[in-house]
């Protein structure tokens, strides 16, 4: 019952957010310079030809009218037709989405596999060499640009060592470098948070009282302390999903990954208004959904949290 009410509330709030996103996306694209009609026509096109093309695309109508007709279609499940590809936006997006989803998911997995153990060890072995290494890793990971890091990876593993392919979509070898690049900032944040949370939790009374019950050290670390220390990490990971989707735009470009990111860049370059709007809307919807899921997951792990 409580869950149903929570979901309903969240659904309404999400719709409100998406409505806001649609307005912002719509107006931003139109404020930005560049005319899709001009880009579609040859350079020596006449004024009249441009006018005609604009009329065909509906760009000659007032902006408010354009928005209302666009939203009317969106509410009926029609995201419109891409100007450049001449294909429905939903088709284009859902063809590219799996590649990005795959990349993001693997990026999250790799970065958590690295950062959770590192954060735990740094937290319990504070002040040791491992801890210093972890802090250094977090510092570099958070401050290094993904573009630069991606290029360094390509240079080392792709060019010098020749172990991994530098471009393209395909098997595990292809996804490794882009996923590591994409997940780097997330792993840095998780290491930093888990390190301090683990340290703080180990100072808590309830950990001393667990020791006083004769429970072994590692059981305390990995069970009784970790569950507490992981709570903020879950929140942050959820919020970082937005960051990852944004990062995918850059990382996909570097590694020639045929996902949503590449599509976004192409759409922006071509001033493909309907496609840009649709991508932003879908991405926002994914972000909102993931955050709702994280909130639900949170209440499962932390009994103090109630859904409301």
């Amino acid at each position: 019952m409580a869950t149903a009410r929570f979901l309903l509330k969240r659904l309404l709030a999400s719709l409100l957010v998406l409505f806001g996103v649609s307005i912002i996306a719509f107006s931003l694209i139109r404020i930005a310079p560049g005319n899709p009609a001009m880009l579609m026509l040859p350079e020596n096109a006449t004024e009249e030809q441009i006018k005609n093309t604009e009329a065909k695309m509906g760009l000659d109508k007032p902006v408010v009218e354009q928005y209302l007709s666009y939203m009317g279609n969106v509410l009926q499940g029609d995201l419109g037709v891409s100007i450049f590809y001449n294909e429905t936006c939903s088709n284009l997006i859902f063809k590219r989405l799996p590649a990005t989803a795959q990349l993001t998911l693997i990026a999250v997995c790799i970065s958590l596999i690295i950062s959770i153990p590192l954060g735990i060890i740094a937290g319990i072995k504070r002040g040791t060499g491992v801890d210093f290494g972890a802090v250094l890793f977090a510092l570099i990971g958070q401050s290094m640009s993904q573009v630069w890091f991606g290029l360094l990876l390509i240079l080392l593993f792709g060019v010098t060592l020749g172990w991994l392919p530098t471009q393209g979509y395909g098997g595990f070898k292809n996804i490794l470098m882009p996923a590591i690049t994409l997940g780097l900032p997330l792993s840095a944040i998780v290491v930093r948070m888990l390190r301090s949370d683990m340290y703080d939790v180990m100072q808590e009374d309830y950990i001393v009282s667990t020791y006083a019950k004769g429970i072994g050290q590692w059981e305390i670390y990995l069970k009784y302390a970790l569950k507490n220390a992981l709570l903020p990490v879950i929140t942050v990971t959820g919020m970082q999903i937005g960051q990852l989707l944004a990062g995918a735009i850059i990382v996909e470009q570097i590694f020639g990954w045929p996902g949503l990111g590449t599509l976004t860049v192409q759409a922006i370059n071509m001033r493909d208004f309907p496609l840009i709007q649709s991508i932003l809307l879908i991405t926002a919807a994914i972000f909102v959904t993931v955050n709702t899921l994280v909130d639900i997951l949170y209440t499962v792990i932390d009994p103090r949290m109630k859904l409301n």
Partner: protein
Amino acid sequence: MASLLEIKDLAVAYKTGHGTSHAVNGINLTINNGEALGLVGETGAGKTTIALSTLNLLPKKVGHIENGDILFKGKSVFQMNKKELADMRGNKISMIFQNPLTSLNPVFTIGEQISMVLRKHKNLSKKEARMESEELLKMVGIAKSRYDDYPNQFSGGMRQRVGIAAALACNPELLIADEPTTALDVTIQAQILELMKKLQHENSTSLLMITHNLGIISEICEKVAVMYAGCIVEYGTVKEVFSNPKHWYTKGLLGAIPKLEGERERLTAIHGNVANAQDLPSGCKFHPRCDQCIDTCKSEVPSLIQISDDHYAACWNMEVNANGRK
């Protein structure tokens, strides 16, 4: 009676970046089988340090055993390996913590926090541990249907009863209760004390009751040790110490309690503050606050002197009468 726990010349210091705190400075204590010993003193007297040292649970890198030893059944707890320690903690010696609001893990059910002790020490399966834990909950007056509830769903008093249930789960030989009622309101305090008294008698558990509440001591304990600044200043049977206090600190503590019967007297207060463990006074640690301080007190540390069969005090100037005249 055989001695169960022997604390010998124990001195503990906490070393941090800000300096060294001498929390415990040469303590000798013995607890016999089935005996209940009270340890009283102000906040910062080193009571909790003694409790944690007994379980070898001082904070790593910060808490240092400077001198002395603690023997449990003749074996030093500081010499025990990890396995022996784990086997002792929660099983042979268990502890009830001061603050029930922080000593239970917020993300595990209270049932889990009791049954983990049983699974660890009695090698019970999950199901057996659950059944036994439910019995323990019933014993401390909590419905067994609440096994799957989390600490935040309980009041402070109930959480402390959960702590007690977990501490008693394995029938420990020694129970250390570190101010078990300080965080609770008075009506709940009475319930908890009643419960502890009953359980202690039923299971003939030895008890180390740490508190700054003299009423609790006289209620539950046979013997009492009064601590000041990491030293024992007076020790003896509760009856003897409370009716015939010798050390000026003990007299001060007792003088600060209002009487219910007889003529009303003005309450006396001990002036000044607790000695700073980072900068302890020379001689008797209590001398800067003592009205009866003489020259010897300032330079030389008094040792415990036997007054009667079961009564010791450490004071250079205890022969004066209450009016302060010799």
